[in-house]
């Protein structure tokens, strides 16, 4: 069982600059071919102010900054034992290439199931842009498998 003292734990806030090349790479990786996600002129013609950040892209921000991996080390969870349980995004404003986004995350809950075989970590994040505008809120539920406790 993960120490419940981590409930309420604030993760270091991080800044993330949305790069055009990274958005194009992400589009390629998910098979996105619509021009408004790849080409600035097409994005502007579609009414966007730059290449739009796709709906799930910002999930990577905590990972990029190494924050999730550091957290797992602090919690004593081997990275090979984690699974993604749930993910949600609530959108307030569209983000674009060139934005510098601030991500603030906290651990809002920790609980166990199946007699300790599975631990659940709930992480809530707020993402705002360079003007202080709220872009989105995200919630991740990470599941940690504990093979030893399961067989015991």
């Amino acid at each position, binding site marked *: 069982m993960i120490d419940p003292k981590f409930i309420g734990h604030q993760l270091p806030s991080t800044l993330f600059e949305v790069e055009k090349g990274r958005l194009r790479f992400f589009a390629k990786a998910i098979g996105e071919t619509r021009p408004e996600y790849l080409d600035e002129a097409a994005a502007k013609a579609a009414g966007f102010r730059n290449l739009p950040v796709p709906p799930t892209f910002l999930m990577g921000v905590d*990972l990029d900054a190494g924050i999730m991996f550091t957290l797992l080390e602090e919690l004593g969870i081997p990275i090979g034992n984690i699974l993604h349980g749930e993910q949600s995004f609530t959108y307030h404003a569209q983000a674009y290439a060139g934005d510098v986004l601030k991500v603030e995350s906290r651990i809002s809950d920790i609980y166990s199931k199946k007699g300790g075989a599975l631990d659940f970590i709930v992480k809530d994040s707020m993402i705002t842009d360079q003007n202080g505008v709220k872009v989105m809120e995200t919630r991740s539920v990470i599941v940690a498998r504990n093979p030893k406790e399961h067989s015991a």
Partner: protein
Amino acid sequence: MSLPTFDQVKVGDELPALELPRITRTTLALFAGASGDHNPVHIDLDFAKSAGMPDVFAHGMLPMAYLGRFLTHWAPQPQLRHFSVRFLAITPIGAKLSCGGKVVEKFERNGQTLVKLEIGVVDDNGDVKLSGDALVELK
């Protein structure tokens, strides 16, 4: 493509499905780099085996990203208000996925006309990998 409107959309309407190519090791390598999720369990067979898995498997966020394509193809992305999923099963190498969904509710809230969608990702055996819902504002 004609955009859906609040008046024209009905509860029970199905969204056009999105069929994806089979998941390959290359798919996962590209997604690891592009998404920022470098967990080796998705890209390094030796590591996956040492973690007790028979093979590498897809990041949960990959099929969720496919669902994002599916949703924003139906209605422009700035109209997407909420998007959530539960990850129900691991997606192995070779899986052939498709995204689907339907309208389950229409309502007004704070002056916005919204539709709730039930959405999911299944493989070609009909196994559900992700299931969730989305709220989209329609004019």
